[in-house]
């Protein structure tokens, strides 16, 4: 019996042969006592291994093992994003100019603000912008008696 036939004998035991190849092995088994003996050995070795793998317990305390797993999971977990959500960004962009305009109107006409008199402001005076996400430019024309306060969001 050559090595190829030996491997076919084994493959038949493992159910890995086509019908034609299985028939060829069956013929060999009928004719050759050595083939039958080898098939019996392979079969009994397979049987002895099946279900007889030695069980093993983790050589660490369950809590310690879990704490290591948990720590590693947390270490690899992506950090939560610090950016503000997109809806908040858009809301801010839309409302910031309106908010600044309202603030300006309050400063000009409110009786509590002491009545910032824009007309009396010097040409170089700036209206302070309290918002981080918006920039502003103040322009005053003395001849026209007009002050322009330009707000843009970033």
């Amino acid at each position, binding site marked *: 019996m050559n090595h190829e036939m*030996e491997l076919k004998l084994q493959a038949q035991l493992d159910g890995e042969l086509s019908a034609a190849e299985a028939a060829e092995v069956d013929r060999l088994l009928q004719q050759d006592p050595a083939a039958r003996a080898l098939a019996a050995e392979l079969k009994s070795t397979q049987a002895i291994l099946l279900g007889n793998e030695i069980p*093993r317990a983790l050589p660490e305390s369950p809590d310690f093992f879990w704490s290591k797993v948990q720590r590693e*999971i947390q270490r690899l977990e992506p950090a939560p994003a610090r950016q503000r959500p997109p809806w908040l960004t858009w809301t801010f962009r839309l409302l910031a100019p309106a908010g600044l305009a309202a603030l300006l109107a309050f400063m000009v006409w409110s009786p509590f603000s002491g009545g910032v008199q824009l007309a009396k402001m010097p040409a170089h005076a700036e209206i302070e912008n309290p918002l981080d996400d918006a920039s502003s430019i103040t322009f005053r024309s003395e001849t026209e008696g007009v002050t322009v306060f330009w707000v843009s969001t970033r």
Partner: protein
Amino acid sequence: MSKRIDYPSASDEVLVRNAQKGDMLAFEELVKRHRDKLYARAFSMVRNEDEAVDLSQEAWVKGWQRLKQFQGEASFLTWMTRIVINLCLDQLRKLKRLRSESIEQMDEETGGVERHMPVVNVNPTEGLERGELRERIDRALNQLSYAHRTVLILHEFEGLEYKEVAKRMECSIGTVMSRLFYARRKMAGLLAGLKQERNS
């Protein structure tokens, strides 16, 4: 988490579903249930306690990260076992332990000494307690090379077909068949030898 569950009595399926939603306690229960089996599989492949602990730990971390990919085609334990096997194979490849020595390689191709070894009669139950039998099998497995033991483990214990073993071990089906034949014949000889030792 939609409702509270009793973790120790919940099925694996329920625990997996909860863990997939981010429930760490459900995942902890799964680890508690299957950690020994996963460690045992890792140990059987790498034959080193520290490496097996590290690899099984890594498998659990990977399991958590990939949990959403688990669709339940196989059991959770089978799925986790595949992860630990792949990690062990990577480790064995990295340490070049899966390479057969050149003489061994030649033996595999031609059938080697195992081919000419007389056929032995191995009776699995003859006069042996199950615990003793398992010890002997483990000792015999320990005498195989990494390459032969791995083929045997993947085929006999994990029930993988030749082509799946070949894919995982990155070799041909022919090599798997030769290695399996070599490993089985060597195991038969070793177990018969142990039996003779015991009888004499």
